[in-house]
């Protein structure tokens, strides 16, 4: 693992603003995390979670404010920063026409990973894809691709992980495996920021929780101080989201089905 510079906070976000034209995706976000912290970032669709993750990992340039990660400013020290971060996102960033091993070999070479062949074997074993190591990624299911994406993201043993809804598209077994893997990373002392719509899963894994709404970080707290049962209510209250709509059961006849599809009722 790359030796990180000693400082109080490993992730420092000050007054971060990101605009797309006239639309503000992030409005003066301040966020500070220490080494080994694991932050679960929640928020409704369009809250700015993905934009925040992309700005933190330097895929987007901030409109204003600054992001310093392990002493590296994301605007000027991108290459050094990329050596210490790993990103798992909606997209797997894998080449479909390459095999699992070839994908890892490509990314391993890009990160100048030493003893790469051994590392690939170790990672393939870790994510449980031993039987598919020489299969093309295009033949993989979504869950298998996501497992390989995890291997890709950690091939250079990053100290910080950004996970943007990593459970998307995974089946129950895949979710459970990924959860175990993330627990392992957390126990290894890696700093993690995880965005998710699943409150319980996020709270289970992390030691801090934050809520982002309309580009504003409206809540951040240690999970030790949060009553999990109350958090859901707090989340719904702060984000102004209604309870999940329950759709009336669809009727067999197409005429009635159309009518019932448009009718949405909320549980009392």
């Amino acid at each position: 693992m790359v030796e990180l510079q000693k400082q109080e906070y490993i992730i420092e976000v000050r007054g971060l603003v990101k605009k797309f034209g006239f639309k503000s995706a992030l409005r003066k976000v301040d966020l500070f995390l220490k080494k080994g912290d694991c932050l679960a970032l929640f928020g409704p669709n369009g809250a700015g979670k993905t934009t925040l993750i992309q700005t933190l990992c330097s895929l987007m340039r901030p409109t204003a404010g600054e992001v310093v990660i392990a002493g590296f400013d994301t605007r000027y020290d991108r290459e050094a920063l990329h050596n210490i971060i790993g990103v798992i996102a909606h997209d797997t960033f894998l080449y479909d026409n390459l095999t699992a091993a070839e994908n890892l070999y490509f990314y391993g070479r890009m990160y100048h990973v030493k003893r790469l062949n051994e590392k690939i074997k170790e990672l393939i074993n870790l994510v449980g894809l031993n039987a598919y190591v020489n299969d093309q990624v295009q033949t993989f299911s979504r869950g298998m691709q996501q497992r390989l994406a995890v291997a890709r993201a950690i091939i250079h043993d990053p100290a910080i992980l950004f996970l943007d809804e990593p459970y998307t598209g995974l089946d129950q077994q895949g979710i459970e495996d990924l959860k175990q893997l993330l627990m392992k990373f957390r126990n290894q002392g890696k700093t993690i920021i995880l965005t998710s719509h699943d409150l319980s899963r996020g709270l289970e894994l992390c030691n801090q929780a934050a809520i982002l709404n309309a580009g504003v970080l409206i809540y951040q707290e240690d999970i030790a101080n949060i009553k999990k049962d109350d958090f859901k209510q707090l989340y719904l209250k702060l984000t102004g989201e209604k309870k999940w709509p329950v759709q009336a059961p669809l009727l067999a006849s197409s005429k009635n089905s159309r009518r019932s599809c448009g009718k949405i009722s909320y549980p009392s």
Partner: protein
Amino acid sequence: MCLFAFLVLIIFSFAFGTGLKSFKGIIPGILWVAFIFSGLLGLSRSFGVERDKGTLPGLLLCPVSPWEIFLAKMIGTFIFTVIMEIFTLLVFTILYNQNFLPFLLPLGLVILLGTLGFSIIGTIFSAMSSTTSTRDVMLSILVFPIYVPVIIAAVKATGLILDGTSIQTIYAWLKILVAFDLVFLLLAYLTFGFIMEE
């Protein structure tokens, strides 16, 4: 690319034949039309894989500078385009019964400089248009107007070389090609990071 170049040469072969009085005068035009149009096909693939498969962020997250990504893509485009051009010259030699061997060195220099400019501009605009839905159309619209000085210089220089004039005569055109390549290489160095971010 090679197949397209072959078809272009076949079409011109039927259109003009080799019995044309001023055939030698249109050789540079035929060659460069084949080079550029076939090259464009390859150019659109430069960032095509990254766009189609969504792997560009993965590439950008590697500890390499955007300039290194540009150079890698540009060199890849350059090599494939040169291979296509060698194939095109061979086919041209057979179809049109022309012997390029006496002019190989100066002609090769002009083709390499012209292709370098094409690869540089093409890679810049391929990256810019890779996020648009009308990537191929946009690429042609963006590349051609910028590439006009190179086309003029390369066609003129090729014509003069095939006429058997001395290297001094084409020196002015070579200078244009070199200057163009250097200016756009510098432009790519300064701007490619921003192009990749947005």
